[in-house]
């Protein structure tokens, strides 16, 4: 309760009570508009009336309560006493607080409920109360009211009131008389003032609410701005930093204060300034509203950061820029990685050394262009198979051994092997490799050392030649096991070593009398002369010929001859290759025989294969007959019964033309069925004339028709879900046979007898551009140890009487070779699944 400071009526008997606004839990008007503002507004009209006024929250809580007149104050405090409690909340609730009832229950509460002003005449204390609702945002947020009018002065009313309120009559009369009546026009003006006050409070309420919401939003935006992991800046059209967040400061290394004195162009990397300014000028010119680019900034410490920048502008009404928003992301780390990667790629791609990364399976994962250049293969070729396949046959074992060592040690150093090039030649490669055990990956470089190797070999050769020349003397030649001759250009022998003498049976003396014409057994003297000339022109020759010995034998010799221009002499080494020749002949004979035997074996195998094929044909014929017999049995029985029935009817005197007609019709119908079955089967075994586009479901249905009766017999359910629209190019009958083989195989899985509960599921559908056929049976699946063998020829798990072993093999051949598809078998939860992909 606010005590009116201007109150001149602090009188005896007045019992003040605690401020009612303290009970206010709602605190909407009270907190939003403010206690002081509410009181100031209330006092603006109350000072004119000097009665009492109250402002309520929408739930009836007191936001303001002022008492100016002694009369009102007396009756209010008296009726508060009537409540007989010290607790204000209880007093308000008890209904005996007559003045509260007049202010709230009978006045303000009504305005809140109706939304329109209310004039209560008279109130419990004999005055009147004018109340008006307070509205904000289109709803009611409270109520304002004020007492007015002349207190009663007649004895009767005074008596009644003093009794009702339990106050002293004299005091009441005194207070009533003390109040000076206000003229009617004042009261009317004050009512308008009350309405105005309600509007004013509503306006203040709305404004304060909006302001507080805005401040919350601003705080959120500020938080987002400051805590962003991306740099955010507001910049001016003059390129100045207006506002920056903490991230920008960290990125650039400047404080906010420092940045606010700078422009962004000052700290932009000179090489990136032009592109940024060009774009910015387009924004200034109104061509674009924003742009994005990668650019570098120079930090305060002089280092460079790479960023991605997004700029967007906010324009004024006249189109000029008000400010710009720049988002800057530090991509220095990413750039560094990219650069490193780029460098590595350059290194990898431009190296003359071979660089490879090999996977744990021994295949190249990645190779550099040098590999292609040195070995001559394309990248696909090199990646397509294990690298050991490219290693020279003679070096494969050592390479494999080195790989084992490499895995143990973790590296290889200077390991040399030969790689076969695409053109058939080979290159010597010297390898350095690291093996990363955790990844199973090998990183290796190799240098092509072929030229070096060749040089090394040449050096060795040159050296040998020198030694040979130095030591070419008769002693060596005489001890040589090869014959040696010195011959003049006309063919005369000037020297022959001991080995040649031994070889031919002549003495040296005899030989020196002879020319090579006398020795040569396969060429005429003219031919010999022409050969000599050719040899001298060419500087040397190597050939095989025949020499005649002293005893008349003809020996095979290999001649290596050199012509020394300086000496004008021919030097010839002659080796007796008679034994070698004979061996070669023998080997040739053996080879010929071997070839013959191989051919014979192949022929035998062919016959065997033919027999197997025949056998498999008989067995499939057996299957075929079995299937036909299943189809035939019932109709055949029907025909047999029809015929017997005619005889029976005759014996029983029932046979007449009509009876006969009926029976014949029935029998013919059965016979037609039988004929149709034969057609179905015959068509099934007509060979395909060539490839054609065919409907897959139709062929599957053809195959299932054949086994339908046998399946029914064994109580096997065939459950088909086929996409009837799918077609494929190939051999329809071969395909149907393949399916029949799979189905027969699946049926056999259920054994001979009744297989109640047995199901064969056939599914046909499209999956990733492939036609998928799944055939599942619950016949127990295939044991894991043989699942890989089911497509082998002659493999069977059935007893001899049933198993052909060819069924799934021929299926595989049809599907994979004729139809270019795949077939596989798996066990899935007790189901055996055959999957065909076409």
């Amino acid at each position, binding site marked *: 309760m606010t005590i009116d400071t201007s109150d001149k009526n602090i009188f005896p008997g007045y019992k003040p009570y605690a401020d009612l606004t303290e009970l206010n839990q709602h605190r909407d008007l009270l907190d939003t508009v403010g206690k002081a503002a509410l009181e100031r507004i209330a006092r603006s009209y109350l000072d004119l009336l000097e009665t009492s006024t109250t402002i309520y929250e929408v739930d009836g809580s007191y936001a303001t309560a002022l008492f100016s007149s002694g009369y009102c104050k007396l009756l209010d405090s008296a009726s508060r006493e009537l409540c007989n409690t010290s607790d204000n909340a209880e007093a308000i609730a008890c209904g005996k607080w007559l003045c509260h009832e007049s202010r709230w229950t009978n006045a303000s509460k009504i305005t809140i409920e109706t939304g329109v002003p209310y004039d209560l005449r008279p109130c419990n204390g004999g005055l009147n109360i004018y109340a008006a609702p307070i509205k904000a945002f289109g709803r009611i947020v409270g109520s304002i009211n004020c007492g007015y009018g002349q207190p009663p002065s007649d004895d009767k009313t005074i008596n009644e009131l003093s009794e009702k309120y339990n106050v002293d009559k004299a005091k009441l009369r005194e207070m009533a008389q003390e109040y000076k009546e206000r003229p009617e026009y004042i009261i009317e003006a004050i009512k308008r003032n009350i309405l105005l006050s309600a509007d004013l409070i509503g306006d203040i309420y709305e404004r304060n609410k909006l302001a507080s919401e805005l401040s919350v939003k601003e705080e959120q935006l500020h938080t987002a701005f400051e805590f962003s992991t991306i740099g955010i800046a507001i910049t001016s059209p003059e390129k100045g930093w207006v506002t920056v967040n903490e991230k920008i400061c960290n990125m650039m290394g400047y404080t906010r204060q420092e940045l606010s004195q700078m422009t962004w162009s000052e700290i932009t990397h000179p090489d990136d300034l032009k592109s940024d300014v060009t774009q910015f000028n387009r924004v200034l010119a109104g061509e674009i509203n924003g742009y994005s680019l990668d650019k570098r900034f120079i930090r305060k410490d002089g280092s460079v950061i790479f960023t991605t920048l997004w700029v967007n502008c906010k324009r004024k009404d006249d189109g000029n820029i008000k400010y710009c928003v720049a988002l800057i992301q530090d991509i220095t780390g990413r750039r560094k990685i990219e650069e490193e990667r780029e460098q590595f790629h350059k290194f990898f791609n431009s190296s003359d050394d071979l660089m490879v990364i090999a996977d744990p399976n021994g295949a190249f994962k990645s190779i550099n262009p040098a590999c292609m250049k040195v070995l001559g293969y394309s990248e696909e070729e090199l990646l397509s198979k294990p690298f050991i396949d490219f290693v020279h046959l003679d070096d494969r074992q050592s390479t494999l051994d080195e790989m084992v060592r490499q895995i143990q040690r973790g590296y290889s150093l200077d390991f040399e092997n030969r790689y076969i090039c695409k053109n058939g030649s080979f290159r010597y490669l010297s390898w350095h490799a690291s093996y990363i055990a955790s990844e199973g990956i090998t990183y290796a470089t190799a240098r092509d050392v072929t030229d070096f190797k060749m040089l090394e070999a040449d050096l060795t050769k040159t050296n040998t030649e020198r030694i040979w020349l130095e030591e070419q003397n008769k002693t060596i030649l005489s001890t040589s096991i090869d014959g040696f001759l010195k011959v003049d250009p006309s063919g005369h022998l000037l020297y022959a070593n001991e080995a040649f003498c031994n070889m031919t049976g002549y003495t040296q003396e005899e030989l020196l009398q002879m020319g090579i014409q006398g020795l040569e057994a396969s060429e005429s003297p003219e031919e010999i002369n022409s050969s000599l000339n050719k040899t001298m022109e060419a500087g040397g020759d190597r050939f095989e010929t025949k020499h005649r010995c002293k005893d008349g034998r003809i020996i095979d010799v290999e001649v290596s001859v050199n012509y020394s221009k300086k000496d004008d002499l021919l030097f010839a080494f002659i080796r007796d290759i008679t034994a070698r020749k004979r061996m070669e002949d023998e080997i040739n004979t053996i080879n010929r025989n071997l070839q013959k035997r191989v051919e014979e074996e192949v022929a035998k195998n062919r016959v065997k294969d033919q027999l197997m094929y025949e056998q498999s044909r008989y067995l499939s014929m057996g299957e075929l007959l079995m299937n036909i017999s299943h189809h035939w049995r019932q109709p055949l029985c029907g*025909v047999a019964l029809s015929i017997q029935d005619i005889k029976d009817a005759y014996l029983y005197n029932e046979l007449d033309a009509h009876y006969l007609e009926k029976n014949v019709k029935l029998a013919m119908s059965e016979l037609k069925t039988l004929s149709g079955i034969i057609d179905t089967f015959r068509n099934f075994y007509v060979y395909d004339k060539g490839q054609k586009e065919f409907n897959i479901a139709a062929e599957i249905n053809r195959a299932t028709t054949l086994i339908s009766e046998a399946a029914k017999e064994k109580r096997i359910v065939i459950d088909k879900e086929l996409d009837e629209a799918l077609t494929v190019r190939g051999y329809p009958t071969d395909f149907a046979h393949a399916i029949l083989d799979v189905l027969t195989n699946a049926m056999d899985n259920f054994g001979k007898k009744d297989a109640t509960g047995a199901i064969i599921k056939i599914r046909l559908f499209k999956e990733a551009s492939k036609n998928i056929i799944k055939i599942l049976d619950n016949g127990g699946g295939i044991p894991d140890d043989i699942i890989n063998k089911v497509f082998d020829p002659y493999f069977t798990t059935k007893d001899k009487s049933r198993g052909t072993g060819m069924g799934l093999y021929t299926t595989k051949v049809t599907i994979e070779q004729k139809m270019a598809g795949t077939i596989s078998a798996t066990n899935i939860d007790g189901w055996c699944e055959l999957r065909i992909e076409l």
Partner: protein
Amino acid sequence: MDESILKSIAVLYAEDDDYIRMMITRFLKRRVAKVLEAANGKEGLNLYLSNKDDINLVITDIQMPGMNGMAMIDEILKLNETQPIIITTAYGDEYVANDKVCRNIIKPIDNDELIEAIMSCLGYVLFRHGVRIKEEGG
């Protein structure tokens, strides 16, 4: 034994093929007092249950949808272990006659063979168990 004895017997005949059933039923009806037709084991068993005292002979196919002939025979023999039963099967090798079954006739059915089998089964039962064939109307 005289074929006229058949005039007083009732036969339960189960066969799923409509045509065969029609023909055999026609054949039987000319010779026996009553033929009860069933298209599967379940129907056959139900007819047997409701006409147990009348039926003298059961003739049944083996392969039938739902309850097959073997299952029906097992149930019938539980009710009457001396019930004469003849089976008609498509495959002599595949279904070796149950030892409780009187005769196995292989399709296509020869009417003479069927009559012979019926007579033999009824006689066997008469001889072995002394079962009296109910006199029609007597």
